[in-house]
């Protein structure tokens, strides 16, 4: 077992850090970007496409770079470090991942080609009012009439749903199961709004909206489960990146801020809590990196690995996010200063694809089926 990145992976990290890290080096730049729609920097999105980042996980035949989960994790960490609002996770990893898994060769070439080139933003419309991280859809239903399909119902919240150029939509099939469809958003009622962490989401209402089945059609629950697992692992890496910065931001504040005539780090009640944050970060990082390796080497075990990473990172994200604000004091509450936004984004990541207890429930139900949780699947 080897946790070190090779030279090419290090080069990817440096390149992404050089681009995204530089663009958002000043937190005020990020703050201004998320204030305006679409909530991210379109020009930066284009430069990420030029760098190959937007096609990273897709096959070269589909217009991608043919890289794997380790590389996706590296990019996610770098975006997480500066809270970059570009929709790499939801558009590339999740929605793109579904097209890559379920789409026909023609759909893959067309949709992933445009996504990789930065010409098209993709969104996965899956969450429904009343749903809670299930793989199935119920509130949006698909109807077939001869050779054509239409969708009816409401999806909300859809990450970047208002900006998206193309939607991947899950819908209940007439004969049971959940299908996946490509939907052009033209003429679809979309109400977009900002999320607490500067992201974007939308309510999307379908009313006999024409839709094209992804690939051969039929029940796609298994695809949704595996694409979600890959996205959970990428999200865990993104959260690790955010925590990697939230901790030193906090410790730097502790050494610079003075009260009672001395720097705050002289108070053991504060420095010990920072030490506990470090423990949480190290453990979460270990599991996130491991889950990326599992997804790379043994995709069949990825759902369990995703649950493990999701659980560990959820616990760590809350611990570090909450303590980071508390150790800062009042300044941590302000929107102008970065640390509170880290906590806000960690909270969003925690709830996008399943929180810690959601993952724990899945792990608990299987706990009697094996003796030890072994790092090697």
């Amino acid at each position, binding site marked *: *077992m*080897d*946790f*070190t*990145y*090779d030279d090419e*992976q290090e080069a990817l990290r440096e390149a992404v850090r050089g681009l995204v890290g530089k663009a958002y080096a000043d937190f005020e730049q990020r703050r201004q970007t998320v204030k305006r729609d679409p909530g991210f920097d379109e020009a930066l999105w284009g430069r990420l496409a030029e760098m190959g980042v937007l096609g990273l996980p897709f096959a070269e035949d589909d217009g991608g770079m043919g890289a794997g989960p*380790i590389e996706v994790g590296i990019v996610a960490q770098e975006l997480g470090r500066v809270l970059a609002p570009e929709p790499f996770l939801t558009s590339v990893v999740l929605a793109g991942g579904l097209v890559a898994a379920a789409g026909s060769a023609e759909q893959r070439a067309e949709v992933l080609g445009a996504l990789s080139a930065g010409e098209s933003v993709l969104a996965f419309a899956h969450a429904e009012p009343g749903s809670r991280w299930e793989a199935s859809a119920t509130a949006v239903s698909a109807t077939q009439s001869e050779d054509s399909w239409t969708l009816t119902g409401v999806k909300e919240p859809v990450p970047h749903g208002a900006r998206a150029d193309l939607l991947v939509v899950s819908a209940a099939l007439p004969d049971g199961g959940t299908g996946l469809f490509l939907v052009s958003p033209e003429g679809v009622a979309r109400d977009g709004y900002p999320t607490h962490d500067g992201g974007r989401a939308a309510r999307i209402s379908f009313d006999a909206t024409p839709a094209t089945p992804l690939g051969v059609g039929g029940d796609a629950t298994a695809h949704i489960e595996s694409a979600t697992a890959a996205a959970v692992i990428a999200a865990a890496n993104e959260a690790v990146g955010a925590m990697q910065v939230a*901790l030193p931001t906090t*410790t730097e504040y*502790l*050494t610079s801020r003075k009260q009672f005539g001395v720097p705050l*780090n002289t108070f*053991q009640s504060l*420095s*010990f809590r*920072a*030490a*506990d944050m*470090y*423990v949480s970060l*190290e*453990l*979460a990082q*270990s*599991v996130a*990196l*491991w889950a*990326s*390796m*599992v997804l*790379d*080497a*043994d995709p069949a075990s990825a759902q369990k690995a995703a649950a*493990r990473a999701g*659980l*560990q990172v959820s616990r760590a994200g809350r611990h570090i996010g909450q303590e980071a604000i508390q150790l800062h004091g009042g300044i941590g509450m302000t929107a102008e200063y970065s640390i509170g936004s880290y906590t806000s984004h960690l909270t969003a990541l925690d709830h996008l694809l399943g929180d810690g207890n959601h993952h*724990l*429930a899945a*792990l*608990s*139900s299987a*706990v*009697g089926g094996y*003796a*030890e*949780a072994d*790092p*090697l*699947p």
Partner: protein
Amino acid sequence: MQLELSPEDAAFRDEMRTFFTTEVPQAIRDAVASRQELSKDQIVESQRILNKHGLAVPHWPTEWGGQDWSPLRRHIWHEEMQRAGVPLPLAFNASMVGPVIAAFGSQEQKERFLPPTANLDIWWSQGFSEPDAGSDLASLRTTAVRDGDDYVVNGQKTWTTLGQHGDWIFCLVRTDPDAKKQRGISFLLIDMTSPGLTVRPIELIDGGVEVNEVWFEDVRVPAENLVGEENHGWDYAKFLLGNERVGVAPVGSTKRVLAQAKEWARATSYAGGSLLDDPMTASRIAELENELLALELTALRVVANSADGKPHPASSVLKLKGSELQQAVSELVVDLAGPASLASGAGDGSSLEQWQHRATPAYLNLRKASIYGGSNEIQRQIIAKTILGL
């Protein structure tokens, strides 16, 4: 990044697994599995089997019985041993005084002490803590005054684990009372049969007597038993404690107890079914498993980054989290036993299971884990200062 072990390391793991599960007597491994206190004979027998096959002190220099293994292989050796329920080589010998003598001792000391130390022909005790020198170890007051060819030692050591079996004791003693704290300390090897040396047991909250007080009244120690240089003992102690922290993240044994705990839960009736089907119990086990996995993966990351035997600063994480999880699993077992956990004093006539008898004593005994080897507050201090720069 590579998930699998290399074919060579996988073969090594299989070799270790086979050895530990076939060469070490089942009775000893069963005693470990049922969390009983081991006898001196069992500990000695096990270590001699390991030593005979070069597996007692692999981290020592090769000329003294060590193996030239990668940090990963050492980790695999350590984990597989715990997994099989093989008692770890006596820490005082294998992890503490042995490496110190090998690194800082004279050639004569190495030849005299290292082979019997590896083979547990000499049982070493640790003489560090004193009644007024716990976490603040450097405030120790036991003195050694040079008198001709001897040092004359006076004072008291405490928390001497398994000192009742000890043949020799390695001690930190104050040789320069005028120097500042850390500066006047020396590392001395003392024969426990020396006149003036007394061992008194201390009964602990679990009913056991695994620790002792050791008193020194004008104990004469040949000056040749000084390790390294006079007044440099603190450096050797720091070296030793760094090694100790790596060893005290008992991932493998905690995993083994947790796996057993699942079986104990499965066999326990609850609400018309099995306790393992109780959602609260299952989620508690699943969460502990996840944290243990996180700790094991972190240990693997740390071993990969430990250059030339120097512990990675993150080894404090292993000690801190490792002891917390060891304690949390022992707490789980008490809760699984439920009312049966009261039967800690039950004998052979009991209708309850042995794991139920042992649950609470093991839990109470393991409260020590966050205190010894540098208390967890000391570990937080190390993390805050050396890693976070606070």
